[in-house]
């Protein structure tokens, strides 16, 4: 018990240290998710904050943010800027269909002892001297995605990569309406992620007393359903610890976040 606790605490510290997202909430907020017209643009705010969706803590780093066009090609991130509290960027929606904007990362971190001294490291490759003892390696895979659609929804960009924790929309993510039920599937490395808790928090936290979060567990096939209580922007997060890692002897954690817009019927 004590050992397990210590391990958990260590893991939490390691995971939290390099990435504020775990202590707070990371998000990307699209200017719109349903668009019409010949020449629409999307603007995205990206931040790490406590309250949703207010930029009041840290900007989200934009390195590695990608926009995927409906045909699967990469769309350009334009007018990117990072301020004190938030980052912002634009995507010119030149194609019809569903775009995905994704910020994903796969990082390693850990600690080891040389003699009596404890060392910590972080990177994409383990950096451990041969004489190290008490070696701990953590693999942290994270993925944050948002979806926007110009014209009719399409599904090319919804295909998972098969790495880490991912959401497979069964109901199209730009076809969500208050009072209706939406279905999703959670996958870990392309396989169903069952028995995982999914947290769903409606935006607008600053102006209410309760978080009003919805918690659901995925079924054995990774599926879960949400009946949207009201229109608005929702922050959805799921995370898993453990499970197989591509790095030997690493403790793996994987998280997935999306921000979905639920419209008024």
């Amino acid at each position, binding site marked *: 018990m004590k050992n397990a606790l210590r391990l958990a605490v260590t893991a939490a510290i390691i995971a939290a240290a390099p990435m504020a997202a775990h202590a707070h909430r990371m998000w990307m907020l699209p200017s*719109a998710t*349903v*668009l*019409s*017209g*010949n*020449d*629409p643009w999307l603007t995205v705010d990206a931040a790490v904050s406590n309250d949703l969706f207010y930029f009041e803590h840290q900007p989200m780093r934009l390195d590695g943010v990608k926009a995927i066009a409906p045909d699967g090609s990469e769309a350009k991130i334009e007018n990117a800027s990072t301020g004190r509290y938030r980052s912002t960027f634009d995507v010119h929606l030149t194609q019809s269909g569903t775009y995905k904007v994704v910020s994903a990362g796969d990082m390693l971190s850990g600690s080891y002892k040389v003699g009596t001294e404890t060392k910590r490291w972080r990177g994409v490759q383990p950096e451990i001297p041969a004489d190290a003892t008490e070696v701990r390696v953590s693999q942290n895979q994270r993925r944050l995605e948002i979806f926007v*659609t110009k*014209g*009719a*929804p399409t599904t090319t960009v919804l295909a998972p990569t098969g790495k880490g924790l991912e959401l497979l929309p069964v109901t199209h993510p730009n*076809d969500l*309406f208050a009072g209706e039920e939406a279905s999703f599937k959670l996958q870990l490395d392309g396989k169903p992620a069952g028995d995982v808790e999914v947290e769903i928090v409606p935006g607008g936290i600053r102006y209410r007393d309760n978080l009003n979060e919805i918690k659901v567990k995925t079924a054995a096939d990774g599926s879960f359903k949400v009946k949207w209580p009201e229109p608005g922007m929702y922050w959805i997060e799921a995370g898993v610890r453990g499970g197989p890692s591509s790095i030997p002897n690493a403790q793996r954690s994987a998280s997935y976040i999306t921000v979905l817009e639920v*419209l*008024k*019927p």
Partner: protein
Amino acid sequence: MRKALPALALGSLAASPAVAADLNVTVEIPRLTVAEYHRPYTAIWLERPDQTAVGTFAVWYDVKLKNSEGEKWLKDIRQWWRRAGREMSFPVDGVTSPTRAPGRHTVSFNSAKGPLKGLPAGEYTLVVEAAREVGGRELIKVPVQWPPKAAKTTSAKGATELGAVTVVAKP
């Protein structure tokens, strides 16, 4: 109303007694006392009991803006956009036209073309949705039995962005 009369007359002339039927829809756009008024974007469409769209009768929007900029706001007619609009390309001949001024506007449709052509007999709903720039949005539903066995008038009344919507179905 006056403008609509020729269309009405034409509709009845074109009607061949055996299969043809007409649907005349009168939409009242209320006069609103607001600082900044824009004529509402309006869509008129027909849906089945499961809310899937049979087709779009009419869309009134800023068709004349340069670079088709008026289309940017079509999604604000949000229920229609979900049910039909997002699958369409604009403008659509015989369907899209400029926004209408406050007053009563009658538009006529018949079984010779558009959504009513070859429509299986059954219960349908005519939907009118209006969304106004810097204003509100309202949706009104009127039940329609098709084809009509006898002339029948059904109507519903809006509260904010739409006045009375009257549907006259005639065999």
